[in-house]
Structure formats: C-alpha cells, structure tokens
C-alpha cells in the first residue's frame, strides 16, 4: 500500500484529487476481495491431526451430474461433508430402482381388459 501511495504521490501533479480517491477505493476493494476470498476458501477445512493443503482447482475434470439441490456431485468439493452429501444424493436415486423395476414388470405382465361379451 505504501508503495502504491508513493506512486500516487509522484503522480499527484498530473492527477486530480477525485481520480486519486477513486484509485484508492479500487485498490481497497481489491485487497478486501482477496482477503474475503482467502477466508471463504479456508472455511470448509476440517481440523484434524494431520494437515495437508491441496492445490486449488483449475477445473473439476469429471463430468457433473445435477442433484436435487442444484449443485453437482463433482462441483461440491471433497470435504467429508461433501462426500456425505454426494452419497445421500446417490442413495435417493438408488431408492427409485425398485420403482423402475416394478414399472417394467408391470408392463411385461400387463393384461388387456377383456372385450368379450
């Protein structure tokens, strides 16, 4: 900040005070945003015995699958809580397997309503 302010001092004779105020505000906002991003990224950590920091993602390479809450399995992250949420979504869909099977059997065993008099 000091260096930036110094640079601003050097150029003060060619910049109006209004421009300087706007520049300072932008810098403050950028720094604030960076701090907020840093804090929010670290919010999901688990405090456990061993600590290993992972690289932040360039992308989530796996294809995503939408879930009931609008997120996707691959987009959720990999904390214990995220894995539990993914598993719960999968469980909900697996429960519907029995309905699917019954519907197929129903179709295979269907009998027409008799039309004889």
């Amino acid at each position, binding site marked *: 900040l000091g260096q930036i302010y110094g640079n601003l001092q050097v150029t003060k004779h060619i910049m109006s005070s209004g421009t300087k105020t706007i520049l300072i505000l932008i810098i403050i906002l950028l720094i604030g945003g960076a701090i907020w991003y840093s804090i929010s*990224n*670290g919010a*999901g*950590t*688990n*405090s*456990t*015995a*061993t*600590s*290993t*920091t*992972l*690289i*932040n*993602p*360039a*992308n*989530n*390479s*796996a*294809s*995503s*699958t939408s*879930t009931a809450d609008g997120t*996707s*399995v*691959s987009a959720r*992250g*990999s*904390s*214990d809580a*995220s*894995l*539990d949420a*993914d*598993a719960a*979504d*999968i*469980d909900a*869909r*697996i429960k*519907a*397997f029995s309905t*699917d*099977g019954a*519907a*197929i*059997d*129903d*179709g*295979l065993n*269907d009998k*027409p*309503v*008799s*039309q004889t*008099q």
Partner: protein
Amino acid sequence: MTKTTLKIATALAATGMILATAIPAFGSALGGNVNLGLNVNVKASTTVDAKVTSKMKERADKEIARRIARLNQVLAKIQGMARVSDTVKANLKTSIDLQVAALTNLKVKIAADTDIEMLKADVKSITGSYRIFALVIPQGEIIAAADRVNTVAQMTSDLGVKLQARITLASTAGKDVAALNAALVDLNAKVADARTQSTAAVNAIANLTPDNGDKAKMAANEASLKDARGKIKIAQEDLVKARQDAKVIVKGLKELKIEVKGNFNYSSLI
C-alpha cells in the same frame, strides 16, 4: 214336435248368430295376441341390443382410457430422461404419440358407432392393437430405468474420482490405504459393468417392432424384453454394490483424519 223342432231351430239359429259374431272377434283377438307377441319380441330384442352395445362401449372405453393413461405415464418419463440418446427417445416418443392418437380416434369412433357390426369390428381392433401397447410400455419403462442407471453410474463415478483423490492424499501422508484402494477398484468395476448392462438393455429393445399377430415374433420380442429387464436388474445391483464400496471408503477416509482444504484439481492427483 213341430213346436219343439221350432224351438230347437231358433236356439240353434241364435247360437249360430252369437258364434258368428263371437268367432271373428275371437279370431281377431287371437290375431291381435300373435301380433302383440311379435311386437314384444322386437322390443325386447332392441332393448337387449342396446344393453349389449352399451356394455361393449363401456368396456372399450375403459380399456382405451387405461392404455392412454399408461402411455402418457411412460411419455412423461421419456421427457425427463437425461442420458438416453436423443434418437432412442425420439423413436419411442413417436411410437407412443401414434398409439395415443390412434386410441383417441378409436374412442371417438366407438362412442359414435350405431351399427352393431361396426362396433364389433372396432372393439376387436382394440384387442388387435394390444400387441403394440404390450411392446411400447415395457420398452419405455426399460429405457427410463436405463436412464436412471446411467445417471447414478455417472454420479458414482464422479464420487469415485473424489474418493481416489482423497485416497491419494492419505497415501501421500503415509497412511495405509490398501483396503480403500481395493474398494475403489471394485467400485469402478461395478460402475463400468452397470453402464455396459444398461447400454446392452437399451440396444436389445430399442429397435423391436410390433409382432402384428406373428407368434414367433411375439415370442422373440418377449424374450428380448425379459432379457433387457434382467440386464437392468444386474446394472442396478452393480450400483448398489458400488455405493457400498463408496461407503466403506468414506468411512475409512474419515478414520484416517486427513485434512482437506478447499477444492482441488482431482485430475492432478490421479
């Protein structure tokens, strides 16, 4: 004698006159009775026909309504499919739309039928078209089930990628992950087999056509549908087992207590 003869003759004449008047009336009455009897029979016959017609129409209406409702049910499922190819979906939708339109037209025609023979022919066509219905419904249900299998397979696969990353992380931290890796290998194998089975199920039935009364074709169609049903069942069981593997891995990872900070690039760890 003469008086007696005259009395008898008068009595006979009177009787004759009475009978002469009464017999035609009696004959007419008999005729009337015959005619009345015929009229009753005609009326009864008409009433019976009306009852039969009404019954036939009621039964036909019920069956047509049942089929349209079932077809629409499958159509709704098809519209919600996410992972079955557009071609398969479009073909099935076309078949169902045609069936619904044909049944709707038939329903209208039967309701308007006044000729008993025409009504019988229309009602018979319901039975005749049943084979199409009996093919399209299981086809649709199998494809819908395959779609869900593919969705769950993808979700489990995505989860597997995360689990792989977490296992690698634990391994890097010096933890024993042999059991977790074994479970993950099984998970991936089960997901792969589920996909293979569901694809085979769809391929087995996607191009089946109505038998049109051909018994050999009917038997072949039934066999294909049942085979596809078996494949869907295996795929579903695969995914249940894959989910159990995931459960084992997640539990194991939690016990290893490896801290995970934020998101990360899974592919860089695999």
